[in-house]
């Protein structure tokens, strides 16, 4: 089994002996397991904290055909965990530097890794269908939803089931899961388990700040657009921008006597920073690639289908089969019920949709099942044409008994059917307290 300098000694016993827990021992064959590791094409999505680990693990457990996608470049704050990068690599493509490092370190001429420095959305179904396994170590919810929907579409349209192994971490905690598109619950099914970014009511930020976060949001949400032109977007990686924001938040805090605004907290709030350490990434990535190894070799059953891990209070794992959500817009019957106050305008309704935990969109466009365009973000002509609908009450634009709303978003290759349930008063309550609560 020797090939290259690194032999297969570390995995040979796992392949040579069928274990007692193999579910189909009579079908298992050593030769096909070895062949599988050589021929299986694995796509690694993300070359960050999890991605570096995933690439290393795959390369050291016999996989030979790997591609890796990442749109990011290396940042100084990556170096405490992304062990394939050095200070000199800051600013370079993560996918490219990671690939080069692994190939050099492993020194195996039969190991083939192809990096792609760009977005997952740059590639189409044609590209994704060439893979046998996708291992995903992304921190972006939107990108994972896109990838998940693409793989479910490949299963539905082409009948080709590509297992998606997904990992995520936060601090001492994380989770890994195996998604068999069409068979198990998918990423979208569990969207309501994704922790949401904390948001603060604009009214509090503007009028009654109490905690340092309110002052920081005041600086970033209300003051930045006032002081800089529309095309100068705030960039959390630009130290001048961060300094301005920090100083602005600090002076606001001083004015109101609120302690606790620091530069670190400012960065954390505006960049929505999630704590990350190498060890948690190692645990979750290893769990993901262990599943990839079992799936590729058929040597043992694989995870069904979700493992939660927590290391901050002793060590705790919870493994269970997450069930499919029948209303899942990606793998289910694509249907959501949303409550709407009778007095809400279309604009208010869209705002609520964007922030709904089970929907979470960024730039939705809306039309009715009867073909009426309610609001479209693009192209500009259509946007202009539908813009006036925004200020009209939704209840005056659709008939909830006969129509549903179709929601699309450029970030997602899916559309979502929303049934609107109207409730509440016809007129907007004029009470100050009611407004405070919104």
């Amino acid at each position, binding site marked *: 089994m020797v090939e290259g*300098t*690194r*032999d*297969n*000694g*570390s*995995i*040979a*016993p*796992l392949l040579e*002996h*069928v*274990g*007692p*827990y193999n579910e189909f021992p009579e079908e298992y064959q050593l030769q096909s397991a070895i062949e599988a590791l050589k021929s299986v094409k694995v796509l690694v999505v993300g070359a960050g904290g999890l991605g570096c680990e995933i690439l*290393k*693990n795959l390369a*050291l*457990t016999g996989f030979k055909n790997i591609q890796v996608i990442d749109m990011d470049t290396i940042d*100084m704050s990556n*170096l*405490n*965990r992304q062990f394939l990068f050095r200070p000199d690599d800051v600013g370079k493509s993560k996918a490219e530097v990671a690939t080069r490092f692994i190939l050099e*370190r492993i*020194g195996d001429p039969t190991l083939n890794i192809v990096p792609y420095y760009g977005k997952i959305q740059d590639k189409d179904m044609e590209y994704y269908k060439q893979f046998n396994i996708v291992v995903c170590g992304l921190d972006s919810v939107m990108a994972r939803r896109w990838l998940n929907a693409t793989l479910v579409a490949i299963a539905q349209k082409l009948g080709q089931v590509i297992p998606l192994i997904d990992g995520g971490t936060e601090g*001492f905690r994380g989770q890994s899961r195996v998604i068999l598109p069409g068979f198990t619950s998918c990423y979208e099914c569990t969207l309501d388990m994704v922790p949401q970014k904390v948001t603060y009511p604009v009214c509090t930020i503007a*009028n*009654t700040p*109490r*905690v340092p976060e309110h002052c920081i949001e005041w600086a970033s949400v209300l003051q930045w657009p006032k002081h800089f032109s529309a095309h100068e977007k705030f960039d959390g990686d630009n130290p001048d921008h961060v300094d301005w924001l920090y100083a602005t938040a600090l002076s606001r805090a001083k004015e*109101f006597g*609120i*302690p606790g605004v620091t530069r*670190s907290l400012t960065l954390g709030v505006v960049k929505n*920073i*999630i*704590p990350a*350490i*190498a*060890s948690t990434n*190692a*645990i979750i*990535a*290893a*769990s993901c690639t*262990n599943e990839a190894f079992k799936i590729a070799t058929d040597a*043992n059953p694989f*995870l069904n289908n979700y*493992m939660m891990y927590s*290391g*901050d*209070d*002793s*060590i705790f*794992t919870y*493994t269970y089969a997450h069930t499919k959500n029948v209303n899942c817009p990606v793998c289910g019957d694509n249907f959501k019920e949303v409550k709407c106050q009778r007095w809400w305008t279309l604009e208010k309704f869209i705002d609520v949709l964007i922030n709904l935990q089970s929907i979470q969109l960024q730039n939705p466009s809306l039309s009715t099942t009867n073909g009426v365009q309610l609001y479209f973000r693009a192209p500009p002509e259509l946007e202009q044409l539908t813009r006036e609908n925004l200020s009209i009450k939704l209840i005056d634009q659709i008939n909830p008994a006969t129509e549903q709303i179709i929601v699309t978003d450029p970030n997602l290759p899916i559309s979502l059917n929303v049934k609107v349930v109207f409730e509440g008063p016809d007129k907007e309550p004029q*009470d100050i*307290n009611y407004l*405070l*609560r919104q």
Partner: protein
Amino acid sequence: MIDKQTKYDRQLRLWANTGQDNLERCHLCMINADATASETLKNLVLPGLGKFTIVDAGTVCPGDLSGNFFLTEADLGKNRAEALTRNLLELNPDVEGKWVAEQSIDSLDAQFWDQFDMVIISNYVKGYDELVQLLWRQDIPLLVATTMGYYGSLHVIRSETTVVETHHPSQRFQLFLDKPWPELQQFVDSFDLETLDETDHAQVPYIVIYIKLLAQLRASNSPIPKTYQQKQHFKTLIESLSRDISQETNFIEASSSLFRTVLETEIPPSVVEIMKIASKLDLTQTSLFWIYVKALENFASKNEGLLPLPGTLPDMASNTANYVQLQKIYHQKAIKDREAFAKEVQILSASLGREEADDLNLDLISSFCKNSNLLYVSKGSYKQVSEQIVKDCLVPGKYNISAVYLSLLNTRYYFNIFGSLPSIKDLESFTQLAFDVIFKPYMSSISDIPESVILTFTDVLSHNTNSYHNLASFIGGITAQEVLKIATAQYIPLDNVFVFDGIVSTSQKWKIE
């Protein structure tokens, strides 16, 4: 020069500079330079562990490269510890690393171990039992990490674990609502809910609402709400004070937050237990933690049985002025309590004739006061197996994860006797050994070992590799997390055995007493 605050930003959000300083002071010893050791150390060098020393006499051979990312072709023929040290140091210039090529750990004298804050054994080593005893006597925490096929385990052997900054995920707030001190009571009395105008009425912080209602309860000799029913009743009281409970944000919050805020102020039972332990100790011989616990008890006895006020407030609907004023009142009381607690420490420390500069360290005192209701203590053991684990294993069924732990443990026994890892050919002698050293007290004959246990033995011996990288990396990650918790003295460590089964991806833990 790279700015540490930037490089370590993502971890400082977990353990702050105090945790980082502790980590940078830590000197760790790793026995063996195998895949699990490499992965563990990688996860510790990256966040800036102070110093490590690897002990391994072996020479890098082609087989070592198979599952180990931190040994390369260029290292072939060199000492394994030396090669691993060099390749790891490349990850972080802030870390210091040394290596020792000692044939056997028996030949290292007792003083050698004194320099370490922690020792890790990766997989198997000759002289294991003696080392466990020695480190136990010297009070140096030992972590034993094992990987075998799809299985792995971690055993933390440490006589005593005490944690102040537990980061306990409890969502409860210590607000002393039932024990308002004069300044707080005065603030509460300054609100007349009857006469406030619409806007001000909706800006009264819920703390004020609670304290007013609790005073009403006290006046009618009703207890602070504890049961679900009492809390529901309290809820209706809150709502009756509101002018419009569908509109007033502060009353809505008061009603929804009451379950985690309206609590009887008392010393939690876990802290009472810790105080009991402290009262039995000879304080001239203990760590500072126990001095603080004793001082805490003295503080409580002079303060109506209360612990120091942590002083942190949750955000709540209010205008800025009311909230900031309230925050000041809580902050000042917390400082007052902290000073009174420091006084107790000083008195106690003097009475014990201690002359330790750290006793009155403001950061330590502050941290202890803030966390005094969440303290954690555990007593360890150097034993490797408990009755519970064996009994779990004997429960009839197709599969039992405790058999995984016993398989890994028996592999260690086997290695101690035969000096090599068992393979599937050794199933019979392996089972005999397990019967002799583990199962004998629980059954009359070797044939009583359940079939499920034999199956797990078969799996372990069939898959007898301890460098399958996925498991080495998983256990390396777990081990590093535990080292980080012990080194930073934050979060709650494993107590004390953990097992992972990578076939079904589940885990289990036990406490060996």
